């Protein structure tokens, strides 16, 4: 360290979510001098109950308020703490379908990207952050979706989680980044600096200068500067392009943000399906992917209350019947958004637009989801969409519009990616096939921003494996 506020390091990793944590760990274990900074706090997994309002305030960016503006607004959430999104999500895990890699390779000219080549990277990540199935411990609410889909003749599966189940005690340990890679990073000698925000980067004398601020125990921000030969940006799909644009790097940066937009329904069954000590739901319907997929959401009374908050009788409904209820979703890969900084403001603005085709896919998906839930024995379905009718039987499905009619807050997402795609086609990519930012030296992106499009499946496994691939390649090439 040089003085009180200038820190020199060989490699600076900005962000400690799945992309940053995997990258930093590989570099530290290779004997490199690495500093990993994180804007949020370093908090224990149990610092707040999962999916509680305390967790929203402690671990989510902007207290859980993220809204993409546009004719059809979309609300999304991101983590902001050591471990990033992996701390606040369910950890549902998939290896990327091969057809997704094939599509990215073809359309974006990404070199050396296919399922066979990625398999060692998935395996390496899964050896550190363990992936397990709930099996017979899965909740009734979760199984109902599978039963309904199977009754329709559709493919439905149990998704594994980044989780170590303790079936005897109906508990377990989440395999978030803070519980896995970050610990290895620190054990290998990496320096972790939470509560540190990088505002911008500039190049000087063959080094990157990262200027930002560090929040002290007293809550005061103090300026801090890092000097590094190599910088890996892994701040997430919204903050990464925002940082690059603030730093004057804007070629294909923040122009193509994608989501998995999601709409939800509450299904009420004739018997209890939802118990307080249930494991998080894990079943998913794959029949219609990649157009749309279906799943089951966290369905605590608080989540049910919010899902039904548009109804005047929501309190009584939830108080009386929450054990018979579950929240289910349909999600697609539609819509495209931009990320821009606003002069005088710290937070970037996101603008999204959906085509009629995007909304038609979600409209069809919603109907299919309801079909499966009625087949699973749902007595009533409450769409979480303003103006939509309650559904009491499959005959009521004819009352659903073909094209989704979504008003504010009805469309949500927990997956954001693709804001700085990778590949050799410079007309549409921000970084090369391994994340090195076009036209720069020593500057890399290594997070969800790099993904060339929707993954169809939960993207954390893809983000980790791609980060592992790119970090390994950078080490092999000695960062050239």
């Amino acid at each position, binding site marked *: 360290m040089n003085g009180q506020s200038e820190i020199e390091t060989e490699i600076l990793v900005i962000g400690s979510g799945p992309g940053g944590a995997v990258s930093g760990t590989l570099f530290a274990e290779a004997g490199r001098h690495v500093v990993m900074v994180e804007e949020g*706090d*370093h*908090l*224990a997994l149990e*610092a*707040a*109950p999962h999916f*509680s*309002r*305390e967790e*929203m*305030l*402690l671990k989510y960016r*902007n*207290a*859980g*308020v*993220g*809204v993409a503006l546009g004719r059809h607004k979309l609300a999304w959430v991101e983590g902001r703490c*050591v471990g990033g999104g992996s701390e606040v999500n369910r950890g549902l895990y998939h290896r990327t379908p091969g057809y997704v890699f094939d599509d990215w390779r073809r359309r974006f000219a990404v070199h050396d990207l296919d399922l066979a080549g990625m398999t060692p990277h998935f395996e390496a990540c899964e050896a550190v952050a363990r992936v397990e199935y709930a099996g017979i411990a899965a909740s009734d609410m979760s199984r109902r979706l599978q039963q309904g889909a199977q009754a329709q003749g559709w493919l439905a599966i149990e998704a594994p989680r980044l989780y170590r189940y303790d079936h005897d005690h109906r508990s377990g340990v989440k395999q978030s980044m*803070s519980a896995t890679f970050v610990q290895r990073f620190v054990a290998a000698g990496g320096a*972790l600096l*939470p*509560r540190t925000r990088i505002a911008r980067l500039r190049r000087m004398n063959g080094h990157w200068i990262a200027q930002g601020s560090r929040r002290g*125990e007293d809550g005061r921000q103090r300026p801090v500067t890092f000097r590094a030969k190599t910088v890996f940006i892994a701040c997430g799909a919204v903050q990464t392009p925002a940082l690059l644009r603030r730093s004057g790097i804007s070629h294909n940066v923040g122009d193509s943000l994608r989501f998995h937009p999601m709409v939800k329904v509450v299904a009420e069954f004739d018997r209890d399906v939802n118990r307080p000590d249930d494991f998080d739901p894990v079943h998913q319907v794959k029949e219609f992917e990649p157009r749309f997929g279906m799943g089951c959401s966290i369905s605590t*009374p*608080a989540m*049910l*209350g*919010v899902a039904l*908050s*548009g109804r*005047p009788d*929501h*309190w*009584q409904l*939830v108080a009386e019947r929450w054990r018979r209820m579950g929240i289910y979703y349909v999600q697609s890969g539609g819509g495209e958004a931009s990320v821009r900084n*606003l002069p005088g*403001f*710290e*937070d970037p*603005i996101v603008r999204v637009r959906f085509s009629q085709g995007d909304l038609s896919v979600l409209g069809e998906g919603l109907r299919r989801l309801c079909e499966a839930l009625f087949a699973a024995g749902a007595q009533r379905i409450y769409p979480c969409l303003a103006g939509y009718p309650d559904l009491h039987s499959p005959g009521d499905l004819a009352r659903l519009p073909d094209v989704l009619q979504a008003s*504010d*807050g009805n469309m949500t997402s927990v997956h954001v990616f693709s804001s700085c795609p990778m590949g050799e086609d410079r007309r549409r990519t921000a970084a090369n096939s391994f994340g090195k930012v076009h036209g720069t030296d020593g500057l890399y992106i290594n997070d969800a921003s790099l993904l060339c499009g929707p993954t169809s499946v939960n993207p954390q496994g893809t983000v980790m494996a791609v980060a592992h691939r790119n970090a390994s390649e950078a080490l092999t090439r000695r960062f050239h």
Partner: protein
Amino acid sequence: MSKPDTVAALVDVLVDESRPGLSASERGVVADYVRSTLAGMPDYFRIGFRMLAMMFEIAPLPVHGHRFSYLAPAERQAHVQAWRRSRMGFRRSMIAFYTTFACYGLYSLPRAQDRAPAARIAA
């Protein structure tokens, strides 16, 4: 006259819609959560919401002669309903936002007492 507390008054109306018997201290917990959410939201939204809250607060002045926070409960409720059903999207959006977060705070109440303060792992 004390400073108007628009958030507390609005949360009161929203709580009354579903749990009129809720204690003052629990209402305070819900209002604090909504305030924390407002404080944490993206900065450009925060400014917009402050302006909206100000408009919402003073809108009843011409008709009732009082700001929202000083209205009688029935008049407050009518004012919230008017914005909820307004043809202007930003008014509906504002009430929808407060409803969502007041609701989340409300439903989280039973578990509020058994929380230990969050401990940071490292500086």
